[in-house]
């Protein structure tokens, strides 16, 4: 599949999710989330693993249209420091939009687009990511606890100066606790990118982002017009 075809397919899925019909008697709920992530970024371009890590702070806003459709935006940023020889600290910033549809109470189909930038004193690298995936929700019957398992593919990964990766996936597992309109959560997340060899006999670029994220979400219902 060509990169253009993958982009078109992902854009179609994203649009389909966004335009999926909400219930006629839609109750609108807005939610806001504050998040803090401990991020570890590891990359190997053939000369050993370069590690950088740091804290990211971010925020999300979501609009729940009916019981099934959720549209959201997110923004996050922070600095990653490294002790690797010759490597430089970098700032990470990202913006994203996402949509999810719940075909069942325990299942959500997700799609998201993210624009991410790594900035060092001498260079800037922009990433464009499109994700499609699913999320399983395991509600505890005994209390307001929910387990979450999430997995997805990244059919579109566009990085300036790099070919598209052969492997691009994302996965996460976490647990949430809800108290009235406030939800707190702890998640482990992973993004993996295996880029192809840089020419015959050339090195392969492997990149991975791991994160431990604390999320605090508050929900409010909106009065219908």
């Amino acid at each position, binding site marked *: 599949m060509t990169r253009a075809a993958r982009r078109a397919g992902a854009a179609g899925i994203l649009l389909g999710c966004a335009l999926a019909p909400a219930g006629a008697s839609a109750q609108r709920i807005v939610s806001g989330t504050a998040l803090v992530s401990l991020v570890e970024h590891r990359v190997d371009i053939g000369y050993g693993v370069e590690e950088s890590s740091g804290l990211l702070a971010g925020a999300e806003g979501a609009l729940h249209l009916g019981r099934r459709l959720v549209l959201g935006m997110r923004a996050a940023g922070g600095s990653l420091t490294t002790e690797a020889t010759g490597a430089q600290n970098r700032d990470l910033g990202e913006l994203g939009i996402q949509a999810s549809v719940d075909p069942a109470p325990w299942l959500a189909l997700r799609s998201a687009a993210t624009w991410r930038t790594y900035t060092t004193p001498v260079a800037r690298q922009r990433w464009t990511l499109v994700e499609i995936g699913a999320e399983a929700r395991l509600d505890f019957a005994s209390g307001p606890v929910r387990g979450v398992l999430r997995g997805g593919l990244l059919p579109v990964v566009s990085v300036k100066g790099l070919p598209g990766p052969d492997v691009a996936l994302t996965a996460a597992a*976490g647990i949430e606790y809800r108290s009235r309109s406030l939800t707190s959560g702890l998640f482990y997340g*992973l993004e993996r990118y295996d880029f192809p060899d840089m020419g015959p006999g050339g090195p392969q670029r492997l990149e991975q982002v791991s994160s431990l994220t604390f999320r605090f979400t508050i929900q409010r219902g909106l009065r219908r017009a």
Partner: protein
Amino acid sequence: MRRLLLGLALVAAWPVAARAQTETADQLRQAQDLYERLEIERALPLLRQVVSRGWPHDVTQEQRVEAYTYLGAALALLGMRDSAIAYFRDAIERDPFTDLDAQRFTPAQLALFGQARRLTFAVAVRPVAAARIDPRTERATLTVVSTHSASVRVELRPADRRSALVLFDGVNDGLRELGWDGLLPDGRLAPPGRYELAVVGRSQLLGRSDSARVYFTVAHETPPLEDSLPELAATQLLPERLQRSTGRSDLLKGLAVAAGALVVSRVAANGDLGGRGPALAIAVGGTAGIAGVAAFLSARHEHDLSANIEENNRRRAARAATNASIAQRNAERIAQTVLVIQPAAGVGP
């Protein structure tokens, strides 16, 4: 084959029947022309032919009434008062709504016609015309007649019920139009169905009684209604009592999340890159596992889950509030119901 022959017979008979009525209409038109030219002596035989038993063509009720009316009018012009009254009575008996236009007939003819009405007693109801009535602003018009002064009672009732709405009860002479707002005696909108409009009269001159009735149907035209929300299904409610099986289920869920975190860090991650991913996964997996174990231990003794009960009550209240607003909107739509009235088969008496 029989159907084909029957079809051919009907096709062949149709022009004959139509032609027969046309013959009668032509004869009546010719007689009226002669009457208008005051050639009464030539008009009378034509009119008598139409009402005679020997007339070979079909004659409708309207044509027969018209012929009797013109016969009475023609004989009145000739001064044959008794014969004129007799023909007028024939016309009135067949159609009590028969009347003479004061602009077209002489005072003498009108006087004889009035005398005929006083000698003949009949009541009638005009077939209800098709109409679309908004009960809040409009009225259906129902028309009855008595040939002369009489005690008249007009009732409207559903065909299958005994309760009747009395539209008029009093002395009437001639034509009377009655308005109906679409409501029954109990104040409710007339439900869809078949209705009977009946008139009963007793002559104040002759001491005789007569009755007549017609039928019509009523249908409702209501804007589409909203469906109310169904009862909350079991899957939409949280368990209100903690049971041992619940604890086991929650333990498995917690362990599933823990396993998922470890699988992500071990299998999905690139092993060549190493890193602290497994430690992060253990932090999340451990939390999930602890939550599962805590749920399992909590469920060793069955007890009510007050938080779930409160949440279920909130969901039930939300559903009830939504249904109440739907019921309110539906009531407003039902109030906009329009009655559709159509004449129905069957006449009386």
